[in-house]
């Protein structure tokens, strides 16, 4: 499979994922009734607490602030993947470590002490952005035959 097809497939899936999070409040605001399926889908992977959610059309997003930040920044990271890949992998790896550390601290503080919307958005966005490179790069490399090495490799060469 060509790299471009894989890349655009990931981009499309990521877009649908993010779009459905906005579609749910829109459907709820227009009283279509179908919003329940999207909310139910996201309820399996997110707490969807009203006090920790963004609002649009007067209704809450299908996922909480943290998840929304991660998914949207993941989408942005996927859009800019061709540019991000020019950055040295080592730097991106350091960024990923820092973003994981930051989100863990923020998550723990959120449940123990206090929750700050800015820290949620920044930590979530940082994680989504940094992880997008490794996820997109990994999937492209896994499915693209030109980048694959056979698992059985000769010893001594």
């Amino acid at each position, binding site marked *: 499979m060509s790299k471009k097809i894989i890349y655009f497939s990931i981009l499309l899936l990521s877009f649908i994922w993010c779009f459905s999070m906005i579609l749910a409040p829109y459907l709820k605001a227009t009283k279509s009734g179908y919003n329940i399926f999207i909310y139910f889908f996201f309820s399996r992977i*997110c707490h969807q607490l009203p006090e920790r959610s963004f609002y649009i059309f007067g209704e809450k997003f299908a996922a*909480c602030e943290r998840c929304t930040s991660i*998914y949207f920044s993941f989408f942005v990271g996927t859009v800019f993947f061709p540019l991000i890949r020019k950055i040295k992998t080592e730097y991106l790896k350091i960024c990923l470590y820092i973003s994981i550390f930051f989100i863990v601290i923020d998550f723990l503080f959120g449940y123990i002490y206090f929750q700050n919307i800015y820290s949620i958005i920044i930590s979530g966005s940082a994680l989504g952005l940094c992880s997008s490179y*490794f*996820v997109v790069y990994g999937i492209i490399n896994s499915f693209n035959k030109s980048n694959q*090495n056979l698992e059985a490799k000769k010893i001594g060469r």
Partner: protein
Amino acid sequence: MEDNYYQSPGKVKPAIIGGIIMTITSTIPYLSLINCACCAGIMLGGLASVYFYLQQLPPDEPPLESKHGLILGAFAGIFGAIFETLITVLIIKFLSKGYFDQIYIEIEKNISDLESQGQDVPQLLNEIQNVIVNLTQEIGEKGFSLVLTILMLAFNTMKDVIFGLIGGLIGVALLQKKSK
């Protein structure tokens, strides 16, 4: 004949360990809160499967590739989904019969909202409501529903595989040693 091909270690054992971690972080009360952070527990399972796979590799191993992380994470997701479904089925059977209460109330509220505003209720909503009523009755009578189990397994597989493979790919990025 001398076998000079490198045989990579099995992926099943690390994937099972990853799956167990996913199940633990998804089913244990309070600990499952970790999944509120974008299914971090499930991604942790995928990452753990990569870690345990790396532990099995001999020192002169060929470098770990992204596809290994993808496969390990996806495998861990499949195992995780199976274990999670089994535990949920047991919980429903012995502890909680009101599995559908939340969604039923939501659907009921949506339908009554639509009716009160004089709008048409989508046929699909009524059908889903009927299915839920039937499933609830089945669970109430037998304590088990095959349809629900299959649906749960399908949903858990989708969720765990997606986030598991993301965890696996992040695991490769984080745990891979620099190739010489």
